[in-house]
């Protein structure tokens, strides 16, 4: 724990990333309790610039943008976290089975992984989203996770394969101990750092994809979601063409980019933490 703190302090970018992520986390959890969503539509107040009463300006019907961002963060982050958890669960599960079982099962699963990695995931997710109505974060997370676990499964499998080859497995077999059990116990400490770093990376991709899908108007279950904001701004309210609407457009963009940046910086720091060789 102390080492982690020290490394974070020495690497200002990782610290910044951590702060940003923490900020968003707070925003998502307690934000909605502190700020109320502005419901009244007042056409005269549309597309206002940031001011004291509206920290991020107003949208196309005069509602406060800042509040929308805060409420939106909750949806976005929940979906991202769920998607990351699901992806990791599926990926580790399939990778482990494939690696441990070997033989035809392994070959079949790896062919499946190959398909998953080759076929472009975004179009497929769009197709699924257009067919099956997504009404809550969990099903949305499932949609995002369903085509994203390929790389993870491969990595877990190769870890298991390399563990299998090590001499102590032979020794265990000679002694009559169950090799699978041992491999699993060796596996977890080895892949935990990898999973931790990948968690953030998967979250980032999930956010990009989820916002993108929403931007096309395919998952309309919550209108204060950042993606939905973009959809409204770009396609429905002509904010792109209205100079004063620039703040309305920039608000979700800034939120997304800031979060991604925080994720990238923090992931670098995590990388250093887990991999001492990278420490300068």
């Amino acid at each position, binding site marked *: 724990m102390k080492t982690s703190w020290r490394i974070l302090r020495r690497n200002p970018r990782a610290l910044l990333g951590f702060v940003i992520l923490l900020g968003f986390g707070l925003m998502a959890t307690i934000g909605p309790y502190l700020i109320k969503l502005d419901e009244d539509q007042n056409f005269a107040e549309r597309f206002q610039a940031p001011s004291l009463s509206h920290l991020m300006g107003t949208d196309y019907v005069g509602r406060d943008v800042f509040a929308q961002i805060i409420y939106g963060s909750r949806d976005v982050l929940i979906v991202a976290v769920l998607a990351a958890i699901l992806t990791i669960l599926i990926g580790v599960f399939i990778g482990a089975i494939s690696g441990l079982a070997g033989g035809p099962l392994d070959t079949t699963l790896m*062919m*499946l992984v*190959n*398909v998953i990695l*080759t*076929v*472009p*995931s*975004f*179009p*497929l997710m*769009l*197709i*699924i*989203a*257009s*067919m*099956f*109505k997504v009404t809550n974060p969990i099903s949305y997370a499932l949609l995002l996770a369903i085509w994203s676990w390929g790389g993870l499964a491969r990595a877990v499998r190769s870890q298991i394969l390399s563990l299998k080859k090590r001499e102590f497995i032979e020794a265990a077999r000679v002694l009559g101990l169950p090799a699978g059990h041992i491999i699993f116990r060796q596996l977890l400490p080895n892949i935990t750092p990898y999973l931790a770093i990948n968690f953030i990376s998967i979250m980032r991709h999930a956010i*990009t994809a989820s*916002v*993108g899908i929403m*931007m*096309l*108007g*395919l998952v309309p279950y919550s209108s204060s979601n950042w993606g939905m904001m*973009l959809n409204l701004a*770009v396609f429905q309210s002509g904010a*792109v*063409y209205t*100079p004063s609407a*620039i703040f309305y*457009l920039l608000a979700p*963009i800034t939120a*997304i*980019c800031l979060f*991604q*940046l925080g*994720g*990238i910086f923090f992931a670098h720091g995590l990388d250093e933490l887990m991999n001492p060789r990278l420490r300068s």
Partner: protein
Amino acid sequence: MQIIKRIGIAVMTLLLVTGLTFVLVHNMPGDVFEVIAYRIAQQQSITYEEALQQARAIIHYDPNVPLLTQFTEYAGGLLRGDLGKSVIFQQPVNKIVAEAVPWTVFVLSVSLLISFVIGTLAGMVMAWKRKTFLDPIVTTISSVTDAIPDYVTALLLMVIFAVNLRWFPTKGAYSSSTIPGFNLPFIISVMKHGALPIFVYILQGFGGWALLMKGSAVSVLGEDYIMAARARGLKERRIITNYLGRNALLPSVTALAMSLGGMLGGSVLVETVYAYPGLGWFFGQAVSMRDYGLMQGLFFLTATAVITANLLADLIYSRLDPRIRTGE
């Protein structure tokens, strides 16, 4: 032998993908299906039952025939090159594809070429010269474009350059006041309309190529044979091209094929933002309008393209790296 195996895998993958989409579309929730039928009925002013039949035909759904037969029919059609029919455009998908493909190919190939060449060269220079002015620039660009999703870049560029500065047009592939053909006004118009999407892809891709090449080159530079090449008194230029270059480029070749998949996926949003009538835009339209015929056809096309690209990359790679050829 290896080649046959790889082609076989590619074909299987394609089959799996086709089967997947087929099954998906067939298992659509009933109420969604009804909506489609209703819309067709409205569009064509026919009865609901007739519309239902049409809708079923579009996704090759015939409740009287076993699923496998339906699939075989569909697959057979695909083999013959029939990609299906689009509901909202009332045209065979093939026709739409013929119109849309040139634009997407134009934009993707130009941007891939530029970003790959410039990025890879930059990466080489960064690795060879150790500390240059390029390092901070490339790293910054790379981090920034990693954080910003492609559609955001597209939006930002659009707002800045098209709407506010008016240097570029905001929609379409060419100006309707020009006549398509090999004339200068048309070509210029095409360039202007394609410039921003191309720029988006270049920005998104450049950093990746540069860092990939840099990492690969740095690792090759640490190999014994580079030092040995210097000890042999080889000319510097030869070392850079034949010894460093040929070895360091290998990972980029594989990445090239994979990047096609990513770019095609990203093209949906980028083209939608710019209302650029390429494959991505049509796919976006199909998805928002629930046009399953068009969706399926375009998706199949995209998947085929990506699988083929991966196959080609595999084959080319094994020609470039003799260790893969004989090994395994």
